[in-house]
C-alpha cells in the first residue's frame, strides 16, 4: 500500500528553563493511503507533538533537530509557514483536537465559522457555500442542519461540537485528517456515535486518518494499523489485531495487559513498574530500559532500531534483533 505520509528520523526538542526536553527522539512512522492509523501512548510520550509537527504548528521554544516529514513526495519540514498555510493546511492536512469547546469560537455562529473556512478554500457563491455547509453537517449525521447553522457553540453538546469540527475540517476535502484524542472529552454513548460517523465517512470518501489516543479500546474499534509510542520514539508498528493478539515489544505487552476489559480481574491486572521518564536528561540507550524486565547491558548503550519481525510488523527491541 502506498504511503501518504512518512516521517523519517525526526528529532525535536523544547527549550525549557531546566534544559533541553527531548520530546521526539528518532521517530519513524509511515501512514498508508486510505487507512485509519492509530498512534497510542501514555501522557507525555510525544504523540500530540507528532500530530502538530505534521501541520507545522510549533510553539516558539520548539527546535527541530533533524529528520523529514514526507507528504506526497514533499518534505513538509522544508516548507515555510506561508507555504504550509497556502498549500497544505485545510485542503491537504486537517486536524481536530481533544476539546471541541475550545476549538470553536464562542462568539460566532456555526454558520459564520463554517463559512469562513469555505470562503478561504472553496471558490463558490454564497448560496453554493450554504449548500456545502448543509451537506457537510449532514455527512456527520447532525440533525436539522439549517437550524444548527444559526446556533452558537455553547448551545451545542460536546458530541455535536466535535461533529461540527469534523464537518468544518472535511468541508475543504483534506487527504489526511489528524484526530488528536477526539473522543476523550465525550461520554461513551456519544463516543460510540462519533466513532460510527468517522468510520462511515472513511468508507465514503477517500481520506486517511491518523488517530491519536491513549485508549486501547478505541483503537480496537476503529484502527487498521497501530504505532505504539514511548518517550518520543515508535517502539512497535503493527496491524491492529496484532497489537492485541501478539504484541512483541515489552512496553506494548504491558500496555495491552494493563487495559481493563470485561474479563479482567483486579488481582491479575498488570502494572508497569516505575513511571514515564522525564525527557530532560532521559535514560540513555533504549528509553524503556529502566522499566523493562529484559533490561540488558546493550539496552543502556544505544537505542534499538525498528526491525521487521513479520510482514507489516516492526519492533524496536534488542531482544528481537537476536532472533
Amino acid at each position, binding site marked *: 500500500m502506498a504511503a501518504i505520509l512518512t516521517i523519517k528520523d525526526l528529532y525535536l526538542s523544547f527549550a525549557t528553563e531546566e534544559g533541553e526536553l527531548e520530546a521526539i527522539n528518532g521517530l519513524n512512522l509511515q501512514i498508508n493511503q486510505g487507512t485509519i492509523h492509530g498512534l497510542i501512548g501514555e501522557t507525555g510520550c510525544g504523540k500530540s507533538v507528532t500530530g502538530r509537527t505534521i501541520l507545522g504548528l510549533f510553539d516558539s521554544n520548539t527546535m527541530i533537530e533533524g529528520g523529514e516529514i514526507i507528504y506526497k513526495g514533499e518534505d513538509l519540514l522544508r516548507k515555510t509557514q506561508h507555504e504550509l498555510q497556502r498549500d497544505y493546511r485545510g485542503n491537504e492536512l486537517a486536524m481536530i483536537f481533544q476539546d471541541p469547546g475550545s476549538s470553536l469560537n464562542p462568539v460566532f455562529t456555526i454558520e459564520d465559522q463554517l463559512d469562513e473556512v469555505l470562503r478561504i478554500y472553496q471558490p463558490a457563491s454564497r448560496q453554493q457555500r450554504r449548500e456545502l455547509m448543509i451537506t457537510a453537517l449532514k455527512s456527520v449525521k447532525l440533525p436539522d442542519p439549517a437550524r444548527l447553522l444559526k446556533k452558537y457553540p455553547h448551545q451545542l453538546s460536546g458530541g455535536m461540537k466535535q461533529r461540527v469540527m469534523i464537518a468544518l475540517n472535511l468541508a475543504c476535502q483534506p487527504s489526511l485528517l489528524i484526530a488528536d484524542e477526539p473522543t476523550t472529552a465525550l461520554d461513551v454513548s456519544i463516543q460510540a456515535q462519533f466513532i460510527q460517523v468517522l468510520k462511515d465517512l472513511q468508507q465514503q470518501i477517500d481520506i486517511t486518518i491518523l488517530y491519536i489516543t491513549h485508549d486501547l479500546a478505541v483503537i*480496537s474499534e476503529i484502527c487498521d494499523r497501530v504505532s505504539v509510542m514511548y518517550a518520543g520514539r515508535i517502539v512497535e508498528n503493527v496491524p491492529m489485531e496484532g497489537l492485541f493478539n501478539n504484541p512483541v515489544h515489552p512496553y506494548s505487552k504491558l500496555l495491552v495487559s494493563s487495559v481493563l476489559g*470485561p474479563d479482567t480481574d483486579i488481582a491479575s491486572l498488570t502494572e508497569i513498574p516505575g513511571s514515564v521518564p522525564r525527557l530532560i536528561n532521559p535514560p540513555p540507550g533504549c528509553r524503556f530500559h529502566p522499566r523493562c524486565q529484559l533490561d540488558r547491558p546493550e539496552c543502556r548503550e544505544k537505542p534499538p532500531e525498528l526491525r521487521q519481525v513479520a510482514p507489516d510488523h516492526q519492533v524496536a527491541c534488542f531482544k528481537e534483533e537476536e532472533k
Partner: protein
Amino acid sequence: MRDSTVNSELESAAAVLQAENQEKPEIILQAENVGKVFPGKEGDVRAVDSVDLELRAGEIFGLVGESGCGKSTLSRLLLRLLDCSSGRITYHGEDITSLPSPQLQGLRRKMSLVFQDPNTSLNPRMTIYDNLARPFKIHNLARGREEITVEIVRLLKSMGLQAEHMIRYPHELSGGQKQRVVVARALAVDPEIIFLDEPTSALDVSVQAKILRLLARIKQEKDLTYFFISHDINLIRVISDRIGVMYLGKIVELGEVGDIFSEPYHPYTRGLFSSVPEPRPERKIETVLMGEVPSPVDPPEGCYFHPRCPEVMSVCRSKSPEFTIRQGRRAACHLFEKD
C-alpha cells in the same frame, strides 16, 4: 390483577429479605427517596431525583452514568456536603439528613472522599507533610509534630511511597504518586466508607492499574466500604460488587454486578453497555444509543429515557416508571414492571 402484582412484589421482597438475612450484610448508609433541586435561571434543575439505595458493609458499590447524570451530586448528598431537597439519609440507622454541623464533624471521620484530579485536591503551596497533617490536626488524631510524623510515614509506606516524599511539594510528584497521597489523606482519619469519585480517570492506564490494586489491597486490610463513581463501565465492572446505573438524576437499575452485566434489564443500561469499546479486535460496537441526554431543566414527560429508547411504548410517554424490585433486582422501566 392488582392483587397478583402486589403479591408477587411481596414475594420478591420477602425473597430479597431472606437472601439478605442469610448473608447478613449490614447496611451502613441508606438513601430513601433522596432528591436535590438546584434553582436556576431557566428553571429548576432536578440533579438527583427520588433515589433509593443502600450501601452494605464491606462492599464496593459502583455508580455509573454519563456526565451530568447526577453521580457526583448524589455522592455529595450522601456525604452531607450538600443538603437534600427531599428524602432521608440514614447512617447505621440514624437519620443524618439534617444533622447540624457540630455533629457532622464526627461523621466526616467515618466517610472520606477521593476526587478525580489529584492536582486540584492537594494544596500546591503545602508540602506533602502539611497536606497530610491536616486531617490529624482537624480531628485531633495525633498530637505534636513527632506523633504526626510517625503517622504520616506509616501512611506513605502503606501507599508504596517513601518517607522522603513528605518534604516534597505536590508538583514534584507524578500524577499516580499524587493520587496515592490523596488516598493516604482519605485513610488518615481511619474511615468506614471511602467515596471515590472517578479516582483514576486523570491517570494513564498503567498507573490506573497500580491505583486499583492498591485500593483493593487497603480495602481488604482495613475492612473498608467503597462508594465508587465512574463513567468507565469496564472499570466499574471489574471493581464493583453491586452497581447502580444513573440516568438524568434517577437510578434506573441497581443490582449485583454479575446479574446486571449478564442480563441488563433497563434499555438504557443495555444501550450504555453496548456503546463501550472493548480492547478486543474481534468485538466491535454494534448498536449505538441514538440522541443525547436531554436537559435536566426540561426533562421529557413520563420516563426520562423514552425519547432515546429503542423499546418505547405509549405508556412511557406519559407515566414515569416506578422503581420495581424483583428477585433481588431493581429497575425503573415499564417493561420490567410488565413481565
